[in-house]
């Protein structure tokens, strides 16, 4: 065998191995969750609120946690996206030049990315106490927005940096302002990337337990106002997994499975959505 062939097969094996590791890891996680939680999966779980004694094996479901998590995840992603988009427009060359502001903003976002989510939880908690608001949906959204912001912003920023200069110049050349270019050209060209960034944030947000443990609280009823505390899937998993009762533990795994399905459905929805709206992207 020649050196080139050896090199070729070496990297082939390397790629196959890492693919198996990643795909296998995911399959394994799903399998374990299903294996342990399958016996607790039933329709009542996703349609009913917990009844008395649910957490010691009583009747009911975790609709409260499902609705709570969807609200927390969706709303915080919307807020994070609404903050991230202008930030990303702002730190592109058009507005910020090669400036220090952009570099500083990227550095800050990277640092924010590294901050543990429990810290954001603690921060949001302090803020809420300061404005005399206790554990609530709103507080949870604030904490999760902070968790997601760097992820969403950096993902979108990376995509925006790939927009060819010629494309922006084509718009500038017919008298477009920077605002026109940002909102009508860059945003369209980056639409698939923007959705991918939002999905990344959503996935992280809906699965995060540490940031909401102090802020969103936990309740067995559905929230009616932003100031109501709210149940959530990660905490439903967390609380039930700590139980010595195998029946309750199985319910924790079932809850984890539902969380997984939600993230999967969100991914599929995003894919479909992206395909629908990315046909104009110039390649």
């Amino acid at each position, binding site marked *: 065998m020649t050196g080139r062939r050896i090199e070729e097969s070496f990297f082939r094996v390397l790629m196959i191995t890492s693919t198996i590791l990643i795909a296998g890891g995911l399959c394994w996680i799903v399998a374990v969750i299903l294996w342990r939680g399958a016996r607790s999966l039933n329709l009542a779980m996703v349609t009913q609120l917990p009844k008395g004694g649910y957490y010691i094996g009583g009747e009911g479901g975790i609709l409260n946690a499902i609705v709570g998590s969807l609200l927390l995840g969706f709303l915080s992603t919307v807020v994070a996206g609404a903050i991230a988009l202008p930030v990303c427009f702002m730190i592109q060359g058009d507005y910020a030049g090669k400036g220090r502001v952009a570099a500083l903003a990227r550095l800050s976002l990277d640092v924010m990315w590294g901050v543990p989510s429990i810290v954001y939880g603690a921060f949001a908690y302090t803020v809420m106490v300061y404005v005399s608001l206790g554990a609530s949906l709103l507080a949870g959204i604030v904490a999760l927005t902070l968790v997601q912001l760097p992820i969403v912003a950096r993902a979108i920023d990376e995509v925006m940096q790939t927009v060819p200069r*010629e*494309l922006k*110049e084509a718009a500038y050349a017919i*008298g477009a302002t920077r605002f026109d270019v940002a909102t009508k050209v860059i945003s*369209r060209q980056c639409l698939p990337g923007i959705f991918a960034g939002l999905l990344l944030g959503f996935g992280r947000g809906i699965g995060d337990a540490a940031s909401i443990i102090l802020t969103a609280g936990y309740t067995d009823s559905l929230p009616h106002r932003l100031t109501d505390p709210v149940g959530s899937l990660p905490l439903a998993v967390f609380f039930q997994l700590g139980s010595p009762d195998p029946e309750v533990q199985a319910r924790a795994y079932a809850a984890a499975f539902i969380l997984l399905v939600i993230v999967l459905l969100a991914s599929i929805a995003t894919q479909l959505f992206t395909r629908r709206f990315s*046909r*104009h*992207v*110039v390649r």
Partner: protein
Amino acid sequence: MPHIQVRNLSVWFGEHQALKNVTVDIPDRQVTCVIGPSGCGKTTLLRSFNRLLELTPKARIEGSVLVDGQDIYGKDVDVVALRKKMGLLSQKPQPLPMSIYHNVAFGPRIHGVRSKRELDAIVERRLREASLWDEVRDRLHTPASQLSLGQQQRLCLARGLAVEPEVILCDEPTAALDPVSSRTIEQRLRELSKDYTIVLVTHILRQAKRLAHHVLFVYMGELVEAGPARQIFESPSDPRTRAYILGDIS
């Protein structure tokens, strides 16, 4: 009065001086061809006319460019209004990430045209002017990126015309195109020169001979010679121009 007057224009990119003290007049409603070997500063000169140059990082500009007698590098110049006056056709056609229709309507829309009927009329008229209408009339709402390169370049021409410019700046607009598309573009430019001032950067001498009323020869950042096309091509006064036209320098 000449449409564009360049006075002592020098441009640097970082340490590199791309244009050296250029002074020249661009006549109104004629085709002015800028010729010269690659990297000589032709494109830089062109991009100084609509101030696209300043989007390039590290570009430094000295001297002045007067359009209709007004210095475009002056203090209170409205860059948007200036660029609206200057259509640009770049080397590689660059459709915007939207449909054929919206590519043409983009300019009028950002400049305030709202009525659907008006926009429809503009789109049809400009696509006809760029001889693209018959090929796309049934698929105006498909993505512009699906057109062939030649069609994309004509779309870019239509898009530029839609903002009613006075000048059309062309940067080797046929470089990426097949011969048939190139010929179509050339034909359109020839016809458009009745109403517009056209500045065409090209390294294809034959193209310059076919189209130019007026020629500028730029060499290593310097404007070597400028004059009526016949004079430059038949009896150039500078030995460098003669060498370039004879193909001795490229």
